[in-house]
């Protein structure tokens, strides 16, 4: 069994098995099988994992050591090879700002920035991001010192339930960079001219972030507001 203290970073009371209620709920999810059986896991060599001579014949997970650099801090981890970047952030580093919506790259709630570019963290393996600079919503700003995009979402009421918001904000920050870098979109009329910051462009470029509350018009307003603000990260 895992060390109860590491299983309980939220300070929740643990029961006799060392499991907090939150941890118990986590164990009920699809990723749980890996967590629960990790004590029996097979281990891959740390830096250059080598293929086994025979294919795995059981459901026992393969573990690998890796380090992830997230929001400026480096973390040493040992993870099931199947762990997505999203699950590594949420379940292992307890950075729960990035959300698991669809877990299939369709909703954008898991959007983080890797080396400054936005990606769906649910559709990539943690193991594939050694040496990358990963930025999550927690790394953009804090309640005391918000990133201009976070402040703009608050000001413009760019959310209702808030579940998609961390992904929307990470996506929005990267979208402004993409426009600045001149990357064209589906609605860019002239491919030889610099990309423009228009409502139509923002709507198209943000189409990978779904908001089921339908706060879209306020989200576009917030991004437009932030684009005018100074000190873009």
């Amino acid at each position: 069994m895992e060390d109860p203290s590491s299983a309980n970073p939220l300070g929740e009371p643990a029961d006799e098995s060392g499991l907090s209620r939150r941890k118990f709920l986590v164990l009920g999810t699809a990723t749980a099988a890996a967590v629960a059986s990790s004590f029996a896991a097979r281990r891959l060599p740390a830096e250059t994992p080598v293929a086994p001579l025979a294919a795995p014949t059981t459901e026992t997970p393969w573990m690998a050591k890796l380090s992830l650099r997230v929001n400026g801090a480096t973390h040493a981890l040992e993870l099931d090879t199947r762990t997505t970047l999203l699950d590594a952030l949420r379940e292992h580093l307890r950075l729960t700002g990035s959300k698991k919506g669809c877990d299939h790259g369709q909703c954008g709630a898991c959007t983080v920035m890797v080396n400054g570019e936005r990606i769906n963290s649910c559709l990539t393996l943690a193991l594939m991001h050694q040496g990358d600079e990963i930025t999550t919503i927690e790394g953009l700003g804090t309640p005391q010192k918000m990133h201009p995009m976070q402040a703009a979402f608050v000001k413009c009421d760019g959310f209702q339930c808030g579940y998609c918001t961390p992904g929307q904000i990470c996506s929005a920050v990267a979208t402004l960079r993409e426009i600045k870098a001149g990357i064209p979109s589906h609605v860019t009329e002239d491919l030889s001219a610099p990309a423009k910051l228009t409502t139509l462009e923002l709507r198209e470029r943000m189409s990978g972030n779904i908001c089921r509350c339908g706060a879209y018009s306020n989200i576009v307003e917030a991004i437009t507001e932030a684009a005018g603000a100074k000190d873009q990260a």
Partner: protein
Amino acid sequence: MKPFTYERAKSPAEAAAAATRQPTAKFIAGGTNLLDLMKLQIETPTHLIDVNGLGFDKIETTPEGGLRIGALVRNTALAADARVRRDYAVLTRAIVAGASGQLRNKATTAGNLLQRTRCPYFYDTAQPCNKRQPGSGCGAIGGYSRQLAVIGVSDACIATYPGDMAVAMRVLDATVETVKADGTKRSIPIADFHRLPGTTPHVETVLAPGELITAVVLPKPLGGKHYYRKVRDRASYAFALVSVAAVIQPDGTGHVAVGGIAHKPWRVEAAEKELPKGAKAVAAKLLAGAKPTEDNAFKLKLVERTLGAVLAAAKKA
């Protein structure tokens, strides 16, 4: 996902050799389609060979005046490349018509070519599907087939190739460069790269086991006006019902390929001779022998009208 081992390949030959050694291994680059399918246990590799370190991430001009696009060039980088925007605009237009900004940042040129169908019966593991499980039957035939193929279909499969990028590459006569485990290289014309379903819909390309894509080569620019017109159920972030990639010359001649209607990007060179006569004449030849279902017969008219819209725009421009 099923458990898997993982390695980072250090050379193309090493990657191909590792894949040949283990038939249940898969290459992984962007991973946006593969990991989605692994979560659903539609793909169940026991070993992943990460090819991201192989350095195929550049776009270079060729001695023939074309472009060699490295297999690992991300969709965003390819669409944004100044040479592609200027000389192969149909390719930029096709790429930015697909997926989302997040996915295009991760998806690679080779991976995009190899993405698998979005046929709902392929995705639903409770349904029969000859592509997912050879011999199990096809749930789509006689089922919900509105999005599916209208031409080049077989009694085993009516799935479509879902991508946009390859449709533009087909119109540009690209070639796919590969390397095998023994180090031999070959160039495959994109016309021959994707297969029709026939009796083996699970075999989607002509790649041999372990064969690794290293680049896609575009011949020298065609000139003309470039169009990629995609018709879909949403304005953004949806697969094509029908898409038309076209390069139209000032005299009205040109090249046309269609997406969303077949198991591969659909182009009939003989139909292009009809371009000066208009969309109806082209569509009649392009779609000769079509076998639509009741649900997707609308695609035949939609191809003609989408092509008509493209030709009208070319005339006006």
